[in-house]
């Protein structure tokens, strides 16, 4: 049966709730309402109020409480209604959760799910991609799945992981992306990127919604004889450097693509690693494609100009191919 990206996350959560009675959910409007995007629909009925906790609008308290519950042996999964509001819990995530293991040996097995991303006319506060701030925080793991298969497999791995995991779900993929999922149970390992399309002339390294843009570009340019390899990072921290470097060494050209704004975005980090470790393989400059350094604008023409898209990727890929 075809499963949407959203439904895949719901299934992953559901299965883990069935498997482990210590897994429970905390968040705003997740119970009776089933979540702002309905990711937790039906879970209150199935698992009850003890395990599906509707909270006040208190992001800092929600994450803090999850950390505390995790010390007591529970495995909390938090929903931040929009990732834009994750900043309200920044201290708990970055200073509390991320630093416990290193300081005093206490693991913090929590998962923080956060719907993120633009392309839905959400404006400056319902469209952001805040992953880079957390990728810059040692002690966290950061996941950003692009497909239904990975979303399900990775949410399950995140719940089983003994460190704090941030799980950025792209809102624009929720109902747009579907695929057939295996009947049997599976997980997807954290920290492993995936070559989702093989190619010879250049590599596009990307994640989240941009994976689909990269694949479309690859498809289109195939007709022009340009063979593109697409690497889906899937996990942003820890970075799977090996898969990225292997791909770039093979194709000798790299485009780093993300929806997040360019300065301080993941592209810069990837670029540094490629030039440090694969410089002699390169046949062209490393190219970044990302949103410009502005807030995410609301009005459709501005948002369209802001977001990386097929046209922009195709143009740059042609340019780099010719280089």
């Amino acid at each position, binding site marked *: 049966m075809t499963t949407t990206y959203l439904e895949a996350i719901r299934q992953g959560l559901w299965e883990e709730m069935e498997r482990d009675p210590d897994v429970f959910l905390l968040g705003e409007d997740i119970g009776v309402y089933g979540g702002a995007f309905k990711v937790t629909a039906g879970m209150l009925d199935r698992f009850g109020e003890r395990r599906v906790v509707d909270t006040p609008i208190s992001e800092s*308290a929600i994450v803090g409480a999850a950390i505390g519950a995790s010390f007591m042996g529970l495995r909390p999964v938090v929903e931040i209604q929009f990732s834009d509001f994750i900043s309200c819990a920044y201290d708990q995530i970055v200073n509390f959760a991320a630093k416990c293991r290193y300081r005093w040996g206490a693991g913090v097995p929590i998962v923080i799910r956060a719907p993120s991303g633009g392309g839905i006319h959400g404006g400056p506060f319902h469209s952001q991609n805040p992953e880079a701030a957390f990728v810059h925080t040692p002690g966290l793991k950061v996941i950003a799945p692009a497909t239904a298969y990975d979303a399900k497999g990775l949410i399950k791995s995140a719940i089983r992981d003994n460190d704090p995991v941030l799980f950025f779900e792209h809102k624009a993929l929720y109902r747009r992306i579907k695929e057939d999922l295996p009947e049997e149970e599976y997980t997807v390992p954290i920290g492993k990127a995936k070559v989702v399309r093989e190619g010879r002339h250049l590599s596009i390294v990307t994640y989240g919604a941009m994976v689909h843009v990269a694949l479309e570009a690859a498809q289109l340019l195939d007709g022009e004889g340009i063979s593109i390899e697409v690497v889906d990072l899937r996990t942003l921290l820890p970075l799977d450097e090996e898969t990225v470097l292997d791909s770039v060494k093979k194709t000798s050209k790299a485009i780093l693509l993300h929806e997040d704004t360019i300065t301080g975005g993941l592209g810069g980090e990837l670029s540094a690693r490629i030039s440090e470790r694969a410089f002699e393989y390169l046949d062209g400059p490393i190219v970044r494609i990302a949103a410009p350094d502005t807030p995410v604008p609301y009005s459709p023409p501005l948002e369209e100009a802001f977001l990386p898209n097929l046209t922009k990727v195709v143009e740059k890929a042609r340019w780099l191919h010719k280089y």
Partner: protein
Amino acid sequence: MGAGLAVAGDPALESAREYSAEQARRFFYYMSMMREVEDRIERKLYRQGKIVGGVYVGRGQEAIPVGAGLAAAPDDMLFPSHRDMALYLIRGVHPRQIFAQYMGRIGGLTRGRDGNMHMGDLRLRIVAIISAMAASVPVAAGAALAMRYKGTRDVAFCFFGDGATSRGDWHEGLNLASVQRVPLVLICNNNQYAYSTPIEKQMACANVADRGPAYGIPAEIVDGNDVFAVHSAALRAVEHARSGLGPYLIECKTFRMTGHSAHDPADYVPKHLWKTWGERDPIDRAKYAILANQWAEPEEIAAIESGIRREVDSAIEWAENSPYPDASELLEDVYER
């Protein structure tokens, strides 16, 4: 008059006693204008796909921004929340700018950079919210601190919902404002829901007002659907704040007569509540008080209403003719030019 007509003996009649025909008609005008503008936004333009972003309206809560907004002096700073459209109207923002804002056109206050009630204009002394609930509270406290610093007699008005009072920013803002005794008027619209979350899941005390004394802030509860009562309470609060006694909290009990946003059918609201609160409609009640006091003839009321509809019709036309921003504007104004 609508089905929600208040009955004789409505406390609004009592609270209206100190008011003049002119004041009452102003209240009525701004509440009706807010209702008309938001009805068109939520029930027409949004459904027609002409508004592509989120829509949150204050249907049933109009007495709060109108009563409080008209108690503010022109130099007082306003920090609206997302259901306080009348504050913009009172400060002279034209409905056409509001429609253009919602439709992402350059005629809107943010030229398409942001949508819905995310708009402000320092010249009008009205500050744009960010989405994160209660983030304005410390900011309003800071504005009030500056007023005292500069020795003005101005006051800051900060608006928020019941749910927002769960945020740490709310508590930190109140506490800072109180220890510094800054001139801050805090206005809560307690519409008993935060998105789908009912008030009893939001807080374990009975009233938002109960929280004021914990910070040394006097608080009172008013009927938030009675514009005269809201206005009188706001005047008391302003008097308190202006005379240097520090912040003052007003909790307006009301009800959100719609979903959280235009896409929310609000199935979680028990049906009887729509009926009960529909009968307490603030506009119907003001209208009733006006007629009962013979402050206007029914024909005059009807004329005000049809005038509003005409104004709104032409405002929408203007907004639809306002262009979208050009993509070349994207990079402008991130910093001072």
